[in-house]
């Protein structure tokens, strides 16, 4: 047990030092990189390692007779989490989410330090000491708090109430509910039931399983599957349509959506928000193919009322492309990202 805790303590100490050095810039901030595609799991794994490390450190310090007070353990761990969320994760997390995470971590820390009477007593002892103010130091602290706390509350209140010229916070509806049907080039498409006419098997029948088997591999690299190269001159059927969709994409869409479909095209950063990142699992992977068809056809101007604040400059592509071309582009987007369109069966 002791050996295990020693390893954890070493890990914790090394982790804290490394994080601190990366935060202040002594060590390059990309020394331990968060790898795109693995970041969500990596973040939780890192936090788990830190918790193990802190537990080991606490254990070792207690074993050496230098027990770290529970009060400071709680406060410092919370501070650590806030710093981690603010500086470790890139791109920066918006304040609203950090506030949610920070509040929950604070509640979690309270639950930890008050889980049993002994711990709770240890934790609140310094607070009680200041409230009781039996020594000169605690007396001074109490007076200090008496002055500082109202000032802080007043400051926060003032800051909250003072008129600001900042842009207001926006609650953008990323995927507004689509209409039941949409009319493109004079034909009405029911979004619940329409299908991409180019998602077909060699027999020419609609076959999502077949097309799913021929999309690129997900994960790093997004490699094409053997014998599923749309740019092979002999490619027929589904793969041929993917190629045609790709040609249309690179003639029309990639300037904004990027040649990797990650929303970082040549003109992307002229817009705020930048165009949709199709490689993110929260975009086309969550949606029916007909939803994309509708969005591409109608563009930003065709967003419904609930698409507030309508922050999209995508043109209504029905004015520039035929229905077939739109379906082929959609086909290509799913093929290239390695995602499957959502279905409900």
């Amino acid at each position, binding site marked *: 047990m002791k050996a295990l805790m020693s390893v954890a303590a070493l890990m914790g100490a090394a982790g804290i030092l490394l994080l601190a050095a990366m935060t202040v810039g002594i060590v390059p901030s990309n020394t331990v990189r*968060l790898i*795109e595609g693995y*970041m*969500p*799991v990596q973040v*939780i794994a890192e*936090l*788990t390692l830190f918790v193990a490390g802190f537990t080991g450190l606490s254990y070792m310090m207690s074993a050496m007779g230098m027990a770290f007070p529970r009060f400071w353990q709680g406060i410092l761990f919370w501070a650590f989490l806030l710093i981690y969320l603010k500086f470790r994760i890139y*791109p*920066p997390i*918006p*304040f*609203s*989410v950090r506030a*949610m995470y920070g509040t*929950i*971590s604070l*509640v*979690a820390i309270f*639950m*930890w330090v008050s*889980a*049993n*009477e002994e711990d709770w007593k240890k934790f609140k002892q310094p607070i009680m000491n200041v409230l009781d103010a039996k020594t000169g130091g605690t007396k001074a602290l109490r007076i200090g708090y008496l002055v500082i706390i109202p000032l802080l509350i007043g400051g926060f209140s003032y800051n909250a109430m003072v008129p600001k010229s*900042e*842009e*207001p*916070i*926006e*609650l*953008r*509806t*990323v*995927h*507004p*509910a689509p209409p*039941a049907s949409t009319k493109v080039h004079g034909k009405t498409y029911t*979004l*619940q039931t329409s299908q991409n006419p180019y998602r077909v098997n060699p027999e020419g029948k609609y076959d999502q399983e077949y097309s799913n088997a021929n999309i690129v591999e*997900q994960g790093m690299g997004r490699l094409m599957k053997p014998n599923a190269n749309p740019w092979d001159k002999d490619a027929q059927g589904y793969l041929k349509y993917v190629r045609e969709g790709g040609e249309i994409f690179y003639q029309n869409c990639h300037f904004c959506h990027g040649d990797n479909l990650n*929303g*970082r095209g040549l003109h992307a950063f002229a817009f*705020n*928000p*930048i*165009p*949709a*990142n199709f490689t*993110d*699992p*929260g*975009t086309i992977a*969550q949606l029916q193919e007909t939803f994309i068809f509708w969005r591409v056809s109608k563009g930003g101007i065709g967003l419904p009322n*609930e698409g507030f604040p309508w922050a999209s400059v995508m043109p209504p592509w029905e004015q520039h492309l035929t229905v077939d071309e739109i379906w082929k582009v959609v086909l290509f987007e799913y093929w290239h990202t390695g995602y*499957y*369109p*959502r*279905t*409900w*069966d």
Partner: protein
Amino acid sequence: MKKEGEAKVEKGRDVYYKTEGIVVGAPAPKTVDGPRDYPRYNFESRVLLWFANQQHLYYGSFVLAVPIFCMVIEFMGVVTKDKAMAKRYDQLAYDFIKISLTAYSLTAILGGILIFTFLTLYPAFFGYLSGIFRPVMHIYALMFVAESGTLYIYYYGWDKMRDGFLKWIHLSMSVILNVIGTLLMFLANSWIGFMMSPAGVDEQGRYLGNIWHVIHTALWNPLNVHRILGNMAFGGGVVAAYAAYKFLASKTDEDRAHYDWMGYIAMALGVAFLIPLPFAGYWLMREVYAYRQQMGITLMGGLLAWLFIIQATMIGILFLSTNYYLWQALGRMRGAEKYQRYIKYLVFVLCCGYLVFITPHTIVMTPAELKAMGGQQHPVLGNYGVMSAKNGGINVIITTTILSFVWYMRGNKVSTVSWSKFGNIFMGVFFACAYVNIIWLAIYGYYIPANVRVGLSVPQVATTLSCLFFMFPLNAAMMKGAKQMGAIEWGKISVRSQYALIMLATAFTWMMGLMGYIRSSVRLFWHVNEIMRDNSPWAYTHTVGFAANMISFNVLFFWVSILFVFWLGSLGMKKAPVEAKAGVPGGAPQPAGGH
């Protein structure tokens, strides 16, 4: 040549079942904003209706849930061999029904207020709805009479039917009472089911003569299941809060012991129904998506998505409060210290599950933050914000809650069965595998088609429920004849635990208000979805802030009024015999679910 009578028969096509039927009703009225269809006070009618409806629902849920508790607790009293314990259970059940009785009158009064509000402010809509449901309106009223009659006999006959065969008759009456109550709720649910997913009418809203189609709409069954579970969890929360309040106000150890025990029983019953509740909610949402994709997207990804984040936050609070209470409850057991040192790891696991569960897909941010983030999708948060991760998050939370329960149930005991070592290892491995499976499936969900991903929730839920259904009995078997390290010292629990119970109840109440609002507002500008349009000036969706304030007001009003009900109940409270109230040395009460 057709006869005159035949020529008048007009057929219509059911909007949902697609069957043909003879039109026997008038079309849904096309309302116009004015005193005829929308008479009003100088106030937003929708808000008045919201208030009346919500209060009626709170009380309705409470009075439907409490008799189920009474049935369970009375049954436990009847089958318990320990006489003193039997008396305590019986007294507890009686205390519950007494509270329920006062609340029952208030429910009926609030129901009346609700109907008057409908008639006064939405006469056209109410006229249409009551026309559609005419065949069952009086059945509903008669069932209410039956419910009242059974309840009064059940309550006033308590002492008369105290012993022997009569006690079983009395217990059977609680079953009848609950059957009637549940059917009443199903009927009421059919109205909201019809408003969301109408059936049994044609496109113009004309009734086609089949009342079963009108009742049995696409969302009726999932709504029924969700509401039964929700009512039970809510009822447990309210009773637990009542016990917590009485505990905190108690002046003697004896009273503290009694209310500590009462709070524990109510919490355990409530949580027993809370655990399957997210799965029932998941089924409901799945059916909503299957019924109308737009409705599903409006709820989960569009206009109302942020309300779902608030809902996730409330669900998290419920589970956190439950776990915290259980950890505090370990403190009243001698010998449970060995588990307390590991609580920090449970906190961490719970916290990770919770953070993933509440991560929004639609993030609130300033345009500057949006720019700094480099697009709407964050590479970390974007992954936590979708269903695959959230399923993992909630299942981790529930599995951890089950683990906390297992720890609590073995807190002061040491297994003496010959296979205890093997049993402990098996349980440890089982839980570890469950966590690995849930997390692995949550990650795997990103690499498969969405329709398969939705199906992944089945093995995840199965994993969680396996922990519940296999580990609880296994633990009970291991703890049979176990060595007691010390008694459960009822009343020796921290006051923090009682605040956790109050938090639990408040979160339940708030969440009920929130979910009711979400369910109702997903119809957007329809009184009856796609059949009868809301043409009042209030056919828009409230802002999140307004809705939150309104829900908070409803919660506050409910709690103030229920405190009054509790006070009324306490005026005539039958004093429990002293020996029945006192803690039983060495004989800890057994919670439902087999402690």
